[in-house]
Structure formats: structure tokens, C-alpha cells
């Protein structure tokens, strides 16, 4: 296992999906934020974070994800999460992320809901 994070983006019609692989910590969170803000600048207002490749997230990573959520609210956009491990899903609920960014079991359900 590695502490670094890889993020790839799939740009679709009206929606961009970010796939993470690795640790969402300070570096990983910044990497996601950089890409998310770039996508916002490109005009994307709906983002989906697919965390299937992530087993671990820390408080710094969460605080950065909260900032991305705030940014999405600011631009009247939507952000969702999918494919979370049970531990990460529980953490997101406790930390309040789920209150502002819906969590979906799989990508298909997320795309169906966010894209609607």
C-alpha cells in the first residue's frame, strides 16, 4: 500500500467523474481539489467522486473535501460520492459530508441521480 493518490478524470456530458486510488490525506486531498477546481473552471457544475480505489482517508483529506463541497455550493453545483468502503462512508456521515454531498452505492446510481 502507498500513501500517494492517483486521480483520473472522465469528462462526460454535464458531469465529470473523478476516480481516486490511494490515500486521501493532505497531498491526496490537494490533488483532488486541484482537479475539481480545474473542472469547475472548465464549466462543470456536477462532479462525482468515485472512491472505489480508496481504503483510507484522514481528517486533513476530509477538511479538503469539505472545502470542495463548499465551493460546489457556492457555484450552485452538485457533488456526489460513490463506491465508498463502509468505514469511509460512516466517517463521511459523522463528519457531515453526507449532509451536503449525497453518497451512492455505485456509479450507475450516482450518475442517474446527479445527472438528472
Amino acid at each position, binding site marked *: *500500500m*502507498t*500513501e500517494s493518490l492517483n486521480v483520473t478524470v472522465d469528462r462526460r456530458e454535464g458531469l465529470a467523474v473523478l476516480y481516486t486510488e490511494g*490515500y486521501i*490525506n*493532505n497531498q491526496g486531498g490537494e490533488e483532488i481539489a486541484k482537479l475539481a477546481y480545474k473542472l469547475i473552471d472548465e464549466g462543470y457544475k456536477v462532479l462525482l467522486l468515485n472512491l472505489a480505489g480508496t*481504503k*483510507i*482517508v*484522514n*481528517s*486533513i483529506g*476530509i*477538511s479538503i473535501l*469539505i472545502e470542495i463541497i463548499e465551493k460546489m*455550493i457556492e457555484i450552485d453545483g452538485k457533488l456526489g460520492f460513490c463506491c465508498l468502503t463502509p*468505514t469511509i462512508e*460512516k*466517517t463521511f456521515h*459523522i*463528519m*457531515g459530508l453526507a449532509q451536503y454531498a449525497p453518497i451512492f452505492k455505485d456509479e450507475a446510481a450516482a450518475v442517474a441521480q446527479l445527472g438528472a
Partner: protein
Amino acid sequence: MAGAPQQAWDELLTLARDETSDRVLLDRLLDLWRREHGAEAAALYAEKAGLLRQEAAAGSGLPAVFDESSSRPEVGVLRIPGGRLLCLPASAAEAGAGDPLTLLLAATLKNCRLKADLKEQQFQVNYRVVELEALYDVGLAVAATLDLDRLSEEILLRAVSLLDARRGALYVLEDGRYRLDRTFGGEAGGWFDHDHPELRDFLLGGDTAPADLLPAARYLLGVPIQVESGARGLLAVGDKESRRGVGPFLPGDRRTLGLFANQAAIALENARLHLQALEKERLEREMHLAAEIQRQILPKGAPQVEGYAMAGWNRPARQVGGDYYDLFLMRGDRLGVVVGDVSGKGIPAALMVSVLHSALHLLLDQTELGPPLLERLNRHILESSTPNKFITMLLADLDLASGTFHYINAGHNPGLLLRRDGRVEELGASGVPLGLLAGILYQSRFATLEPGDLVCLYSDGITEAESPTDEEFGTDRLLDLMREHQDRPLQELLEAIPAAVTAFSQGSPQGDDQTLVLLRRE
């Protein structure tokens, strides 16, 4: 302020009513301030961790962090509660001093800071809940997760995540050494002695850890994983993260990691015991199967031969044993009789029994039962066994018509021949046990069985069975039973001897495998 256009005030009023737009309100107010006071640029700074950091800016040219000692003359500085308002040029600040718009700006900044502090505190409270949940979850895993591998990974990932560490390692204690089980975020040393002085001090709270514990980490924190009966491993995390990079762990982190390790210890111990139980169960199943195979090797009954009665019996000390016997007809007019005892007990002895049985019957297809067969068997056993393994054996060939009983005793207990008139003859050794020496020659001896003569071949598990006072059952008791049952059905003697041995032992554990072969000419 009075000069501000109505449209601007309307916008500000709308923003003030919206709780989510404090930042936007601050930006708009600052921009209004800049325009009202003819400034090219204006920026607001709030005190944070001993520094004045920029919170909002209208226009450019002002620093991200303001250092009062290096203030430039062209920059105007206004002190406001909890921060500063800087502007370019400095002349714009004069009109701003005591201006209601400046006060409004200061109040909005303070409001923003309070909200940010509240948000941070809420975040910290929530994260404490995440920590407690992690402890609770690992506690639950005691009952739920018995997969040691999955549990170990979960424990390491949660420890790294909880402590905001960048890397970590889990070591398990095995045979007095800490063995690396897994790492996260970098390599680690393979193992450390349990009493490694530097490691021991480090786990007790010392600052210095062995260099290989988690080499990539600049800052380390480690705690032992221990249950009531002692240490089971250690958990180490490295490099505490913050938004500014990595640094040392905080004093409270040792306690958090320690609490987590205590919960993890119980979970790991539970999973380890479960694994052991599964392994024991598997071994028991295999032993059961081995015992079944061995039962197939031993004869299911004795040949029915007119003029003779014969029977065999075996009771291993464990599930499987190292004793062997066989009774078989050869060409219809001869009877083969074998009793053997492999040195040792349990699985190794049982495997040798299997080797002996196969080799003996293969050789019997090619050779007469006699010294040459035993010599070839000796060679085979010598080649097939470890140096300390040997087999004692009494092998006999009975001519059913004449009663001539040829026997070879390879280091086995002397068989007992009780004549009808009460005399006893011993069928003693005529060679060394099989598997000890190469090139051994065996000699055959014989006795003639007359009607009423009773032969008893046995293993030393019978005669050396011990009472609670360490007395051996002995051959005298065996002979007494033979005499007592000489004219009774043979089956009665076959049941009487084991019953007498069991009664003699009075519940003492059976120390050795027990085997009996009885043969009487009617």
C-alpha cells in the same frame, strides 16, 4: 458611506440575510470600502496562530501575510478588532479611521472568524466521534472479523487514518521477535528482537526508534499491542500531517493510539485463537482420516481355518499408532502371522506401519515367508525411514496340517506358547529389529503346535502398561490369563486381556499402543 449607491446597499442587505454568503459579503464590503476611500487596493487580515493572514482582498499588491515590522510607507494600516485593514496608497487609510464602513467591515470579519472557529471546533468534535467510532468498531470486530489478514489491514489503515499519519507499520510478536506483518506508505525493517533496548524504550515513550522500524518516517509514534498474557505486537505510525506538511505527533496522540492498540490486541488475539482452533480442527479431521486408513490396513477379522482358532486386537495410544498385526492364509495350507511395533507413536509411527504393510505384502507376492523376505524388508525399511526409526517384528509361518510353526523374531517381545500340559515356551529373538543395520541375516526357528496349545503374540504396550504406582502389567499376569482361559473360547481371552490391562492401569493414560494376536490349535 452615505455616498454608496442604493444598489450596492441593497445587494449588501441581501447578502447579510443569507447565512451562507459571509465571504461574499466580506468581499463586497471591502470592495465598497476601497471605492469609497479611493484606494487602488485594500485587504483584510486576521490574527491566526500568531500571524496576520489575509482573509479578503480587493485589488492586488498587498501581501498574503502581514508583518508589521516590515511595513512599507506606501501602505496604509488601520488597526481593527482582531486584525488589520491595509490599503494602497497609505493616504486612503486616513479617511477610513473611525469610518462606520470600516467598523462594519471589522464586525463582518469578526463574524466570519467566529463562524470559521465554530466550524473548526465542530470538525474537531466530529473527528473525536470518528475516533470513538473507530475504537468501538475495532471492539466489534472482536466478534465479527475472524479473518486475521483482513483484520490486520483494517487495524493498520485505521491507526494511520486516525492519527493523521502519512505512514505506518504493524509488527507481530512471534518466537520472541517482532516480525513485520504489513506497512503502509513505505518499507520497514523485517524483524526486531523483543528485548531490543532501543525499541523497548521507544515503546515506553522514548523519542528514538530503531532506524529500520519505519525508515521513511521523520516523526514516529509507537505503542505495544498487548493482551493480559503479554505482548502480541506493536503498532507504529509516522509523520503527523497538517495542511502545512508533516510534523511530530501531539501528546494526546500516544493515548489515542494506545487505546486503539488495546482494542486491536483483543481483536487480533481473538482472530488468532480462531485460526488456531480451525487449524486444530483440520488436524483432528486429518487424524481421524489417518485412523480410518490405519483401520483399513489392519485385518477386519481372522481367517476361518478348521482345527485352529485365531484372533487379533489393536488399541493405539493416540488416534493412530505404530503397532501392526496381520493374519493371512498362504496357498490355502499355510497361515502367515505378523506382529510388529514401530518405534515412537502417532503419525510418524503410523506412516511407517503403512510402509511396512505395503512392503511386506508386495514381497510376499515374490518370496516365501522366511529369512530372505525379512532381510529384503529390513533393507527397504532402512532406506525408507529416518535413522532413529526401527521396527520390532515377530513373523511366523504355520503349516496348518502339521502344526509346524516357523518364526523369526526381529527384536520383538518373546511370543508366549502355553502348552496343553501347562508348560510355557518363549518364542524369543533371533535377530535385531528392522531398519537398524544393513546386511543383517535372520534365522528362522520353529515349534510344533499340538492340539490345545495356545500362542500369544503381543506388543510391549500390553506387558508394560503401568498402574498408578508405576508397576508394569508384566508377562506373569498375561500368562495367568492365558492359563485361566486356555480351554475357553478364544474370544473370551481376547476380551479378558485388554479388560485386565485397563483395570490394572486404573485410569492411568495409555502410554503405548497395544496389540494382541492369539492362536490355538483345537
